[in-house]
């Protein structure tokens, strides 16, 4: 089906089911329970999961396959966002032209940066991409403010000269982004007893695009092009002496992953029409690197898992304050309650970064293949089969 089969097809179906049912899956706890804090099934976060999933899937096409570690991919996401917002300002509130433009602009930007950076490999390549992205960020924050609106970020205003559509909506506000009249922010709520599930148009647009992106990524992984990219990672000398020119292959991978980043940026802007310069900072580029490695570089599903993992901690753990903790541990004796709260406070609220840092270390130390490996191990445990020998053979890295 769809030109893919076996495990890949299963994987795509699993991702499809997960993505479509996310509003249920991410809201497992009843509203009134103390655990409701851990629910992640609200539109903004679900959109972020999916959008950063797309970003990471694209990054993985470059990094996972060719091994070229770009430290400047956030620049493409940022450029995508800016293009999309400009499209909303100038053309129309329909998300389609905005997303198309953001993919194209990010692709062109990636073509230029990739063309220059790919003249070097290894760490030299990483630093070149980093340098380009940092230049973009610094300029966007300061000198380019007329285009980027600098510190605040580019946003819509009431006097945008929109060619198709109005500058001001009927209610006197700024028009909202839509897909042929279907508003992106529109959300329906389903209440089932103490549970309530939110279905947002925007989320479903993102989810569909994630599936498309994921599908394309599978096709690329399984194509001769994907094979060549893996060959680039494995042995460039042999590739050259097999009559293949590595540069166009790596450049194509770079541009494709830049376009994925542009798509993610365009979607971010479509869900919430604001493009901030921080999106291009090195920390943002570093984040997608971390997502990919954390999930499992070079695997299909890993980057999506990594993206979800990091965004979950950023958005859910940072919101747990001592007030919440006292509610949770209110049943304990006073002294113990305070001790537990004091201890837990290190890891939540303003300490969410600490938890994330510790988890990075734990995952990479004990699960060398990232979260995907964790999944495989659990799967093996469940099936109860010891495939250790087989696994070892498959994993052993080349000695030379």
């Amino acid at each position, binding site marked *: 089906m769809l030109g893919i089969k076996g495990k890949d097809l299963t994987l795509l179906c699993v991702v499809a089911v997960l993505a479509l049912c996310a509003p249920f899956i991410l809201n497992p706890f009843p509203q009134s329970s103390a655990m409701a804090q851990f629910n992640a099934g609200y539109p903004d976060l679900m959109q972020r999961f999916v959008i950063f999933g797309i970003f990471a899937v694209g990054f993985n096409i470059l990094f996972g396959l060719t091994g070229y570690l770009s430290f400047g991919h956030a620049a493409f996401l940022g450029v995508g966002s800016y293009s999309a917002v400009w499209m909303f300002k100038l053309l129309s509130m329909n998300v389609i032209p905005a997303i198309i433009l953001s993919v194209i602009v990010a692709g062109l930007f990636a073509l230029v940066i990739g063309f220059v950076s790919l003249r070097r490999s290894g760490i030299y390549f990483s630093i070149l991409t980093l340098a380009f992205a940092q230049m973009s960020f610094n300029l966007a924050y300061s000198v380019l403010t007329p285009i980027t609106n600098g510190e605040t970020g580019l946003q819509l205003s009431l006097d945008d000269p929109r060619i198709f559509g109005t500058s001001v909506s009927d209610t006197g506000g700024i028009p909202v982004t839509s897909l042929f009249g279907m508003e992106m922010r529109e959300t329906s709520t389903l209440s089932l007893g103490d549970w309530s599930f939110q279905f947002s148009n925007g989320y479903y647009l993102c989810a569909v695009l994630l599936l498309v992106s994921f599908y394309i990524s599978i096709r690329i992984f399984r194509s001769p092009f994907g094979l060549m990219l893996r060959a680039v990672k494995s042995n460039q*000398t042999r590739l050259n*002496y097999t009559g293949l020119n590595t540069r166009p292959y790596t450049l194509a991978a770079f541009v494709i992953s830049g376009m994925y980043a542009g798509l993610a940026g365009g979607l971010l802007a479509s869900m919430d029409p604001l493009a901030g310069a921080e999106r291009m900072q090195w920390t943002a580029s570093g984040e997608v690197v971390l997502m990919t490695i954390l999930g499992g570089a070079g695997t299909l599903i890993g980057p999506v898992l990594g993206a979800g993992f990091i965004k979950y901690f950023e958005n859910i753990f940072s919101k747990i304050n001592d007030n919440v903790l006292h509610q949770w541990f209110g049943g304990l004796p006073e002294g113990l309650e305070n001790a537990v709260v004091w201890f837990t406070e290190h890891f939540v609220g303003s300490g969410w970064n600490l938890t994330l840092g510790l988890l990075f270390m734990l995952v990479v130390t004990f699960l060398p293949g990232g979260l995907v490996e964790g999944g495989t191990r659990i799967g093996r445990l469940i099936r109860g089969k010891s495939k250790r020998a087989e696994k070892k053979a498959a994993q052993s890295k080349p000695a030379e």
Partner: protein
Amino acid sequence: MGILEVKNVNKRFGGLQALGDVNLSVAENSVHAIIGPNGAGKSTLLNCLVGKLIPDTGSVMFDGQSVLGRTPYEINQMGISRVFQTPEIFGDLTVMENMLIPCFARRDGSFKLNAIRSVEGQADIHDKAEAMLVDMNMADKRHMHAASMSRGDKRRLEIGMCLAQEPRLLLLDEPTAGMARADTNNTIDLLKQIKEERNITIVIIEHDMHVVFSLAQRITVLAQGSPLVEDTPDKIKGHPKVREAYLGESTPA
């Protein structure tokens, strides 16, 4: 006129004359060996043939076309394949995938954005790779990680990958270096078989005289960057200058 014509090639590295006025003519469909002591310039010469090094002066013509100024992949696309001293294969990929790559390179040229159709879906390439694996006697290893194979198998795979490109000239850089005797013999047999079954010119650089004398039709002896003699194996064996310079025997007084 041979298929490979090297004329007056000079190459200096700083103060060292690595190659001095090398002339070489390799006849089509022959096996030509280049021997010489360490530092004689064998590898430098080979690197000049494949575009890794550019000679200071002189010309290298392959089938009437100059290879100078072309990159390794362009020269390869002209029909020259190279086997390295240490097998250069795609260690992270399976044996089958290793074999697929040259097949694609043969069909699609140096770059093609073939990103949608799956590898499995391209039956012509698949069959060709499969056939080559069978030829190389490696079909049972097709799902193995290339890096986890023995040195001899890696060499066999590398040669197979070169052949899959259907080159007109195959360059072998000490193909049996570091191999056990059994592997060496297997490699010799394989090369003999290739010589018999395929229309292909082979240039081989080798230390192991056993290998050289069992394969080569002509031998060039390099010493200190320049050709000492060129002749048939039998003549070379008895040549006094060669014995002195290379085989390390002093000429009887």
